[in-house]
């Protein structure tokens, strides 16, 4: 092990709080500033911090690039899935009012629809940001 004790311990203490803060931003987005984009970036920032302190090799063990790529694609699928779900329930594409029964309160469906698509945005942004960081940091430099 190297001698960077303060950095390693500090990262280990802070990382879970960064992740929790990202989730807070995600789910508090209905009531205050925040939402999927910001939460995704903050979620990714925790992994970037980990990679900076522990090295890219260890970060790849924690979060393989493939998982990041799949996350990036999965978010779009979740988003489209919510849209198609409301379509199959009898409404228009992305009309969340139809997510529940037509007699049901339409605002209920709207609320869950927004939570669903925000989740999709979170997953995509998180995956894309981590993948971008890996792409740039994992590149080997050829001297020219």
């Amino acid at each position, binding site marked *: 092990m190297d001698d*960077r004790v*303060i*950095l390693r311990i*500090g990262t280990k*203490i*802070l990382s879970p*709080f960064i992740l929790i803060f990202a989730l807070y931003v995600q789910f508090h987005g209905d009531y205050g500033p925040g939402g999927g984009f910001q939460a995704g970036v903050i979620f990714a920032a925790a992994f970037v911090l980990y990679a900076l302190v522990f090295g890219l090799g260890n970060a790849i063990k924690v979060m393989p690039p493939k998982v990041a790529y799949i996350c990036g694609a999965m978010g779009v699928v979740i988003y489209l899935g919510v849209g198609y779900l409301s379509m199959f329930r009898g409404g228009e594409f992305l009309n969340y009012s139809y997510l529940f029964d037509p007699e049901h309160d339409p605002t209920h469906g709207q609320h869950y629809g927004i939570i669903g698509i925000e989740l999709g945005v979170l997953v995509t942004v998180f995956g894309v940001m981590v993948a971008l960081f890996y792409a740039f940091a994992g590149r080997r430099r050829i001297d020219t």
Partner: protein
Amino acid sequence: MDMALDALSWISIVAGLFFMLVGTLGVLRLPDIYTRLHAAGMTDTMGAGFLILGMVLQTVQGILHGESTWWFVLFRLVLIYVFLLFTSPIASHALARAGLAGGVAPWTAPGDGDE
């Protein structure tokens, strides 16, 4: 009571601004990265600390006036300070390490130390 809290809060906010100013001057005037980090670290702990203390006093005043939801604001302010206590020294430490790894020799006064 109100007056006292308000005055205390403003005093600590002004003190925070003073420390911020001194820290900024230090960053601008000091000779090398390590001494500048020293000044910047003071900005974070003392300056931001006093500013948050001032805001906490304002929040306490609100709570005394029966604003029950301001407890959350107080809680968040305390959390912010706790995280500042963690992140600021770690960031300074990381920067100083990076400077050392990058081969920046610490500045010494002319004619002092190196012969």
